[in-house]
């Protein structure tokens, strides 16, 4: 169970999630400090840990559109929050699967700031309003990567098998 700590509109681009001017910082562990850097309130809340584990950021359609920069995923992942959106841009969701950021696609969800939400495999339950919304699961191919613990582990296993 988590609380909605921030609400975004549609088309949140990777320039908002991780502005290009920080792209010289590449190591995944160094990126979290710059999450949503130009959104001072949200950045401060994340960096100062003014939220609980499992808390949630909600967004509209096409979250993560724009650049393929993987920092946009590692920067959020470093804070352990979950993103619920109506849908995600292709490269962003692929990067999320590869790095293990929890992204939930719930096209019809309704929620507001402060709502308590439970995320299950096939649905999200808004405990505050008492309503449930369907979740579109990851494709089987993506789920395999998630189950392996991310793309590094997944590729490593194929590499080892090939060299046996």
């Amino acid at each position, binding site marked *: 169970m988590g609380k909605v700590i921030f609400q975004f509109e549609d088309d949140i681009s990777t320039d908002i999630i991780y502005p290009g001017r920080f792209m010289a910082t590449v190591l995944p562990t160094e990126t979290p400090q710059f999450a949503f850097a130009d959104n001072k309130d949200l950045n401060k809340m994340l960096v100062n840990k003014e939220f609980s584990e499992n808390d949630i950021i909600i967004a509209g359609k096409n979250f993560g559109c724009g650049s393929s920069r993987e920092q946009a995923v590692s920067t959020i992942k470093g804070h352990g929050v979950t993103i619920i959106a109506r849908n995600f841009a292709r490269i962003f969701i692929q990067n999320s699967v590869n790095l293990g950021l929890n992204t939930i696609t719930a096209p019809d969800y309704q929620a507001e700031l402060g709502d308590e939400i439970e995320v299950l495999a096939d649905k999200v339950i808004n405990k505050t309003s008492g309503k449930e919304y369907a979740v579109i699961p990851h494709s089987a191919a993506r789920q395999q990567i998630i189950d392996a613990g991310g793309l590094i582990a997944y590729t*490593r296993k194929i*590499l080892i098998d090939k060299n046996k």
Partner: protein
Amino acid sequence: MKQTIVQKILAKACDKDFVAVGDVVEPRVSLAMSHENAALVINQFLEIYKETNLEPKVWDPSRIAIIFDHRVPAESSKTATNQKKTRGFVAQQGITKFHDIRGDEMGICHQILPENGYVRPGFVVCGTDSHTTSHGALGAFAFGIGATEMASAWTLGTALNVQVPPTIKVIVNGEFSDNVLPKDLILYLIGKLSAEGANFKVIEFHGEAIRKMSTSGRLTICNMSVEAGATSGIVVPDEETINYLRNTAGVTDEIELVVPDEGAEYDQIVEINASELVPQIACPHTVDNVKPIDQVVGTRVEQIVIGSCTNGRLDDLQIAADILRGKKVSHSTRMLVFPASGRIYQQAIENGIISDLMKAGAVVVNPGCGPCLGIHQGALGDGETALSTTNRNFKGRMGNPVSNVYLCSPAVAAASALTGVITDPRKGVN
């Protein structure tokens, strides 16, 4: 079964005769491209090899391209150190398609690949850059991926878990009016489809206006297909593709054209009449906020930018020079030009284009991504507005979250440079 171009390319890259839309496949990668973010790819690549007791070795160094373009010459010691680390890796692994910071070889990755003949029709091209879609201009299936996925491709030589995408067929007939350009076509299409209208899909371009379009124009439309969310844009390769590869890219070996089957199934068909198009402007802060120019004419702009992987090629600079020759950039604005590659820069010097632009008052910077992504050139002041031939106008894209970016063709940019306000290039400008 009939197939789209991308189905055929993917089938071939998996040694199959047929793949269906929705199938998950692992195609062999023909070319794997990175830029400065190779530094992150290297990090992830070495992670994969950790504790395997295997020596880290890329699958095929001749199929990896690394182009420094995003921040050249380096804007910070951090970037310079990343570039240094990448040079070391390139040397150690024997990667040959490497373009360092040199006047004779440098340029934006999406220009370097085509002009050096690194991309061919039928190729599977992946790149750690969302505008990798550009290379569909040469009939390749080209798509952007993240750094970890690239590390995986460097290791295995395949792209994992590629879901065969459905295709939107866009048919463009009719003739473009004067000073209406391929950029106007793609902006119009993005406005029509919306920023997510082609998410997870491919846009396949057809029609007489596309057949008559130069490879430069095709690069522009495929480049920006990703702004409608597309996995890739692709043009049916033809005589023009062969001419470009032979005459500009210097390719001498055999070129095989992969074309879609007659009767292939499309997810959606969009028809556009080029003769009805007018100059288009993408307004702040989303690329699909597209308006015909008359709705924004007169908007004051403090910075004009011509360049990028979208519109920094020789014909783009030529169009601007033709409008600016013998005239002056308004003192109420400033104009920056960044050619897409060293080769283009040289040609523009030899043709007198650079001289025309500079005499008019433009600042010509070195080839690279320059102001496009707001890192180290051409930042905007608080509250300022830019009019740019680049491809993104997201909040903060040009380095300042309290500024505005409008996107347009090189003709609109040049005409507006003369006045300092958004100006229709079809009407004579003094």
